């Protein structure tokens, strides 16, 4: 089976396995993190066709024919995506949950370029951060929205 990941066609030999393992162990894209396997922590969040998706609950075969975007696909060469810049300016601690927050925020800003604090809360609130970086996450997403509107 073939998958399109970050704009590249990739051959996948275990389409029945969960996307998080196929991305990490088969395709070497270890930026997408495993945290719970039941969709509760959000560390594995990726975009499939632009939709926020838990890669730990989604068989790779479910992504066939659709565009998968992972954290590795956010930057354009040296140019960071606004959500990456937003978190660089408002860092978390260990960063294991970070890819999930980046992907959730990227999807939020696509459909809501000027989110209210409540909309940020709703989008980011489905992902856990054990280091307790919630104050940073709120600021990082708000900052990312500002950067995106400024055309970063």
């Amino acid at each position, binding site marked *: 089976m073939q998958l399109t990941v970050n704009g590249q066609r990739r051959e996948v030999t275990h389409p029945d*396995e969960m996307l998080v393992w196929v991305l990490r162990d088969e395709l070497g894209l270890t930026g997408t993190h495993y945290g719970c*396997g039941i969709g509760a922590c959000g560390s594995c969040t990726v975009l499939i066709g632009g939709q926020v998706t838990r890669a730990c609950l989604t068989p790779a075969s479910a992504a066939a024919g659709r565009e998968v975007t992972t954290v590795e696909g956010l930057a354009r060469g040296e140019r960071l995506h606004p959500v990456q810049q937003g978190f660089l300016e408002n*860092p978390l601690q260990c960063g294991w949950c970070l890819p999930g927050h980046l992907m959730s925020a990227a999807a939020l800003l696509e459909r809501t370029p000027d989110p209210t604090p409540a909309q940020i*809360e709703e989008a*980011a609130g489905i992902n*856990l951060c*054990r280091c307790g970086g919630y104050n940073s*996450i709120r600021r990082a997403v708000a900052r990312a929205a500002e950067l995106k509107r400024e055309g970063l």
Partner: protein
Amino acid sequence: MEAGGPVKPVTRRRVLIGLGSGAGLLIVGAPLALNAGRPALVEFIEENGTGPQDAPRNPDLWFEVTPAGVTFFVPKVEMGQGIHTALAQIAAEELEVTPEQLTVRQADTARGYAGGTMFTFGSTSVKALYRPLREAAATLRELLREEAARQLGVPAGRLTAAGGSFFVAGSRERIGYAQVVAGKQGEWVIPKAAPVLKARRDFKRIGRAMPRTDFRDKVLGTATYGYDARLPGMLFGAVARPPRFGARLVSASVGAAGRQPGVERVVIDVGAGFAGVVARTRTQARAAVASLDLRWEGGTTASSADLDAQIQAGSGSVLRRRGNVRAALDGGTVVRAEYRTPLAAHAHLEPLAALADVQAGGRIEVWASTQYPQKIVDDLRGVFGKDREVLVHPTQLGGGFGRKAGQHAALEAARLSAAVGKPVHVGWTREEDLQHAFYRPPTHHVLRGSVGADGRVRGVEQFTAGGDIIWGQTGMPEFVRDALGFDPGGLLGQFLPYDLPAYRVVNRREALPVPTGYWRGLGVLPNTFALESFMDELAHAAGADPLAFRLRHLGSGEDGRRLRGVLERAAQSAGWGTPLPAGRARGVACCLDLGTASALVAEVSVQERRVQVHRVTVAADPGLVINPDGARLQVQGSVMMALSSALHEELTIQGGRVVESNFDRYRLLPMRDAPEVEVILIESGEDPQGLGEPVMGPAAAAVANAVFTLTGQRLRTLPLRPGT
């Protein structure tokens, strides 16, 4: 509790040159142990006699200067606490380089950080390395200055170091560090005079915000954690787990596992209690482990109620005795209260993980997210032979909180790799991580106190019991633990930091049938919850304002002064005593731990039996702050983790196993429960103290105290459940 012990002074002789002589390479380090094999170390050995018996292969080498720049090999692991950044700032300060000129790299065990010195625990990293690291960096700077002076033909005193170069006073001439090293002929010689450390008023980097050295890789998704370690040709492993704590594997056979797809090898060693599978994918390995034919015997069938029954305060070792407590409690208004805290998990979001490459009869190489790399070396030598060459590369850690001081995944990966002759990665599932770990032990606290008509505490009697923490993770025999009577980990936050005329503390430790051990801050969260709740109860019994009551009971010494500082600043910023909207109240608590004073004001409401924390104001005084941004994250993170414990976290034991298998049942603080946390940093000392854990102390008590003020209900058990 007392401030931490003084930092051991590091003499000039403890700073070593590793290698030089015109090789274009200069290595400087401070030996936490030494190597008799390197000629440049002779000077050290002459001064100190022979080296320790367990001298490692290499000294601790911190810096390398090459024509490409200065590389700093950090001897502590990064688990999110920002230690690589903080230590780089300290190094850059004395080296007189910009952060951009310093390449920061994680040291591996081959660089020789012997014994426990790479062990990253107890909020000790900055505190312990603040002076030795500065001395090593300053020695390097002065070595370079002497050599630069020789090469330029000017007196060393005319050279000013800045931005990785020396500038000649009164001229435009300059020479870069790399150029100095490249132009060096012959041996480097340690300067006769000890390097002069910079005065605090001259600091350019310490005390200022500096961006995290590790965070660009993290936002790009390219940072390597233990779960991400990869080698060509690697396979994936999974390991069988006992059905109950303490159960022994008595027989095992391959069963259907050997015929499962992708399975490369089934590894069974009943004597070692080990059964695992190597497969081409992780999913295949896990599926095959589930179909192994295993028989387990024994182990515990304990339940949470059994643990609670075992943890009963009331007798034990007398840890403190001041004044006549019996007489003090014989008058005034007497208050008695009991508190309990539950078994809790670390729940670091990256489960245990390691990659091992065991070369037949040769070197064992491991990449692991570990707080204690040297322990992996020791554990592997215990299995594969004490002379075996073992190299451990610590990776980034996706959280640790004490759990990654033990790293069984490395040993498991190594057993599997040895059997299959290829590199094997083992990454635990969340279920394994929650159900087969060691835990924060439950505690029980019984306090009796009395306040007089003058509004002052007459005396306090305190009984505490808890499961083992440090003893739970070391090989200390039970009779020694019993003779000592207490667990040192349980002592953190154990003592009321107030000036009381009579005070008696009795502590009791218990070995529980479930594994218990280090959890962020050890005793500080459970103890401070009990003590600072009780202090509040005494304040209310005295009809006093809880803040004023605390301030009134602080001593006039250093500890009292620092606690007064944080209490006053937090209270002022939180608007203590000013009106709040209906349905809200404030609570206060403070803590002195590992040399750091902290005070916290929580503003809460209670809605449908749920506590909502709206705002937290916390003041922390760690003596000296290296990186204000990093310090704020540490304080906020401590508050959030403590709130998570205060509001949600509790593990249940049933039939000798943990009931909660994942985050659907073991609830962590979600964003909607996370208040804005205002952090006030106070610097009242010469040297930095610990900041990763002490602020775990006051949050739970401050919230419980606020709930009491709001509802009149005193919640004495964590997690806090009002109205039940």
